[in-house]
């Protein structure tokens, strides 16, 4: 093998006056930001949808099911293109124009990735709620809780604990999935990776570094959620992990 290793190239100056490592750091920043923001969107919306699908109200269940079927079965990249190029044409003209001209790209990317991930989280949350005994809801109602209060105080706290392992893998996946947003112009890690490969010939170094970046992001997320899991563990209770699918 006569590959020319050169780890110092990261400190070389680029056309725009920055160094290559600045590009990587900037990409890492965008990847982290887009991923975490999408995760927040996904957790909130996914929980709402998951709850909807376990209520006794049929139309809420139908609405939630339809959402999950749609957003889980269309590839992420197609969904992103839809938000960028199709939706602006379908909405009233002035809104479409605003979406195309004024709305920052990253907002659309975050919404797209968040809505996609929400479908997967909705599935977990629903599985978690359904794994609880029906008696828990009855016990809550019998004490005078409203349907909503049985979720708030009784069912969701247990459901989240049960599906935390599955949610952890979703949270780790979102960093990987965020790479797709380069296709709609987000200057995130994968975008910078491609750009550096085009500008230099140090494919191995940059691949190693970018791989490490993704690994560290997923690993840190894993550790944070492991900590949450330990902190919320219920003494005396063995919870099954029916949630993962």
């Amino acid at each position, binding site marked *: 093998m006569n590959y020319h290793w050169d780890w110092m190239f990261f400190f070389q100056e680029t056309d725009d006056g920055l160094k290559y490592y600045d590009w990587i750091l900037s990409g890492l920043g965008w990847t982290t930001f887009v991923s975490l923001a999408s995760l927040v969107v996904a957790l909130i919306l996914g929980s709402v949808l998951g709850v909807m699908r376990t209520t006794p109200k049929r139309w809420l269940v139908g609405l939630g099911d339809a959402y999950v079927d749609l957003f889980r079965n269309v590839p992420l990249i197609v969904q992103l293109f839809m938000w960028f190029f199709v939706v602006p044409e379908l909405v009233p003209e002035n809104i479409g124009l605003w979406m195309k001209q004024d709305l920052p790209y990253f907002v659309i990317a975050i919404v797209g990735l968040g809505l996609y991930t929400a479908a997967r989280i909705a599935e977990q949350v629903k599985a978690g709620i359904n794994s609880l005994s029906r*008696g828990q809801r*009855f016990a809550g109602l*019998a004490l005078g809780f409203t349907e909503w209060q049985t979720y708030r105080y009784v069912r969701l706290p247990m459901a989240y604990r049960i599906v935390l392992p599955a949610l952890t893998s979703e949270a780790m996946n979102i960093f990987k999935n965020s790479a797709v947003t380069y296709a709609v112009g987000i200057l995130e890690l994968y975008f910078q990776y491609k750009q550096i490969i085009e500008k230099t010939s140090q494919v191995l170094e940059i691949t190693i570094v970018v791989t490490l970046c993704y690994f560290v992001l997923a690993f840190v997320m894993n550790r944070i959620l492991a900590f949450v899991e330990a902190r919320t563990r219920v003494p005396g209770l063995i919870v099954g992990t029916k949630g993962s699918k």
Partner: protein
Amino acid sequence: MIEINNVSKWYGSFQVLTDCTTQVSKSEVVVVCGPSGSGKSTLIKCVNALEPFQQGSIVVNGIAVQDPKTDLPKLRAKVGMVFQNFELFPHMTITDNLAIAQIKVLGRSRDEAVDKGLKLLDRVGLKAQAAKFPGQLSGGQQQRVAIARALAMDPICMLFDEPTSALDPEMINEVLDVMVQLAHEGMTMMCVTHEMGFARKVANRVIFMDRGAIVEDAAKEDFFGQPRSERAQAFLAKILNH
């Protein structure tokens, strides 16, 4: 206190309850028994509207349960219920299990709710367990906490759905003792149970259900003493002999 009038209920085309009529007066203890699948749980869940029914009416303390205008959470808060599988909230300490509904439903302050909860916990003999979680208690202890949790709401009556049938035999009496004490204090109680010793001791009336219908509704002395429907006789013979 509880009036059940001609209640019928269907799951799809399957009729679970057929024209059930009975009542429980203030301070009365009524025991409901009958073979598995006869609709006992369904009937008792209709009383606090945990299950809807299609025909008839149930009136609890003057309030019609099936009336769409009835504030069900408010009504249920006044009707205590104890379940076969305890149904304590596993992620909360015993103290929180006792306090949460007092705080969130009745609007009591946390101090007041905890205070009341601990007093009741002491009454069921479990004061030392206050800081534990349900998973750290035995079945009998959990069921006693569940009774205390219901009592903390100052209920006007109590519903029990087979409170001892998920328990190991050696724990049954600790729960029955609490129920007997309650009965002696004048609590209005409707109990689904096959504990005929308990029925003999405190019941005023015994109801026997079969295939969704109330087949027998008699004073305790009559139920245990005199001839009555064959199905009830056969049932009684079976459970008294095992």
